């Protein structure tokens, strides 16, 4: 008998809010976390705006020891540890004070890179022929699984500890992987989530590809425009989102609060065949990922109340909407409500799926749709497919029973997950 799987803890470090309270009020009010970044401007980036969570030294000191913070320069680990520890605390789970690891508690916490600024420092040190002065902290901060290693040590986890990586699908995929491990009985609790480094050395590659907007350097909060006719490229962001994923039996036995149930999902790839390439999605694969997720979750498309889109604010947004209409076989006024978080946060890359899934779970738990910002001029190619009122531009109080979330990433990869309001 498969286990039912629920979400019992959340943590978030987002450009528009650190911690659940701040993030919840920011997304309800449509507050943007995107600002002008002087360092990007100094480095002559085309896109000089970004969504960057502002973590103070005081906040960092609540999560890391002074020794850990010596020569620490890994923004991804910083965000991931804050989000992960917050989620653990939110779930009411203890830190392990014994010598015996928590054998049934594990982690799947994704990352695309780790400590890219620390890595840069190390490269300079090595090239200056000063390797003997490198010290002991480079590996832990720059290995991709650094975030999982820091978190599992702080909590004392003893089940599988892994870092997944699948470009912008990473966050959604981590939640799906956690779901599968618990459903099949290999773990009872999994800390899931994903994080992304900040700064020019992570965002530069995208700027070089000219996929980020260069039109809003003087109007940062207007820059990220999912579903808008004037969407002109994504705004880079960073941060982390985290979830305590748990078997229903275990959650009930300890009287945990339950935010939502995970019903199922699917991850696939378009194989970079057909229209799919390294950077463009194969629409057939996207549609199949959504259909397979519904099938896996035993949910009818007609029962979907809300969609949390990937919707990055590029020309691909209309294609994504088209894919949803085909996969769900719903369009016009029959289409579910849909929203895009990236209007407020920018595209938080590897962390995007996690931050957006945190927003999705909060919507289910608190009965609302956060507003779509910066799409007052909706893309006509989108309104040709779905009614404008399905894209709420003001916060909408609405009961959401079933929500579907998808993320799509470079390499032609897709991940889709279905979340439901918990009913015993």
């Amino acid at each position, binding site marked *: 008998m498969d286990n039912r799987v629920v979400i019992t803890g959340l943590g978030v470090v987002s450009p528009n809010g650190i911690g659940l309270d701040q993030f919840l009020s920011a997304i309800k009010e449509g507050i943007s976390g995107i600002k002008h970044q002087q360092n990007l401007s100094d480095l002559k980036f085309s896109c000089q705006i970004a969504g960057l969570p502002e973590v103070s030294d005081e906040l960092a000191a609540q999560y890391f020891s*002074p*020794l850990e913070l*010596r020569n620490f320069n890994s923004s991804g680990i910083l965000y991931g540890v804050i989000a992960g520890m917050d989620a653990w605390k939110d779930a009411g789970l203890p830190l392990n004070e014994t010598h015996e690891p928590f054998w049934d508690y594990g982690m799947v916490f994704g990352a695309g890179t780790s400590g890219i600024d620390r890595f840069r420092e190390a490269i300079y040190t090595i090239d200056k022929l000063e390797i003997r*002065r490198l*010290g*002991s*902290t480079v590996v832990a901060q720059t290995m991709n699984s650094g975030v999982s290693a820091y978190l599992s040590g702080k909590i004392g986890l003893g089940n599988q500890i892994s870092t997944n990586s699948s470009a912008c699908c990473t966050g959604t995929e981590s939640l799906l992987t956690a779901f599968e491990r618990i459903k099949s009985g290999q773990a009872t609790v999994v800390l899931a989530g994903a994080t992304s480094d900040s700064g020019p050395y992570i965002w530069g590659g995208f700027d070089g590809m000219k996929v980020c907007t260069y039109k809003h350097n003087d109007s940062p909060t207007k820059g990220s425009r999912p579903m808008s006719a004037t969407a002109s490229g994504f705004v880079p962001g960073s941060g982390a989102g985290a979830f305590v994923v748990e078997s229903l039996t275990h959650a009930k036995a300890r009287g945990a609060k339950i935010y939502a149930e995970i019903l199922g999902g699917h991850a696939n790839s378009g194989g970079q065949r057909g229209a799919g390439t390294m950077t463009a999605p194969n629409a057939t694969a996207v549609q199949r990922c959504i259909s397979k997720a519904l099938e896996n979750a035993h949910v009818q498309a007609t029962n979907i109340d809300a969609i949390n889109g990937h919707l990055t604010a590029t020309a691909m947004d209309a294609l994504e909407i088209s894919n949803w209409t085909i996969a769900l076989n719903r369009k016009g006024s029959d289409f579910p409500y849909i929203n895009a978080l990236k209007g407020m946060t920018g595209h938080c890359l590897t962390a995007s799926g996690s931050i957006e899934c945190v927003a999705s779970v909060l919507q289910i738990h608190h009965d609302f749709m956060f507003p779509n910002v910066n799409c007052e001029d909706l893309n006509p190619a989108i309104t040709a497919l779905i009614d404008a009122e399905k894209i709420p531009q003001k916060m909408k109080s609405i009961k959401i029973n079933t929500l579907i979330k998808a993320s799509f990433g470079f390499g032609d990869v897709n991940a889709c997950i279905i979340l439901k309001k918990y009913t015993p």
Partner: protein
Amino acid sequence: MSNEEIIHKLKPIITTYAPASAALENLNEESDFIKDLNINSANLVDIILDVEEAFGITIDNTSMEKMLTVKASIEVIKEKLSEK
């Protein structure tokens, strides 16, 4: 430089890496970095880098390997200071 002076200079360096303990309070020549002071072995290399900086010396790999106790560290520091 006397042994006491060296220990006085070593203590703040070691304190950075050692968890608080009675052994750290009573740091002396016999203190073993790992067994008595519970220092993570990965941090021994950081201690050596800090010692190099504090004493203005360079410690070669062979000498580094010896520096597992305060006593051995004092010997290496004295030797390197005398070579300056």
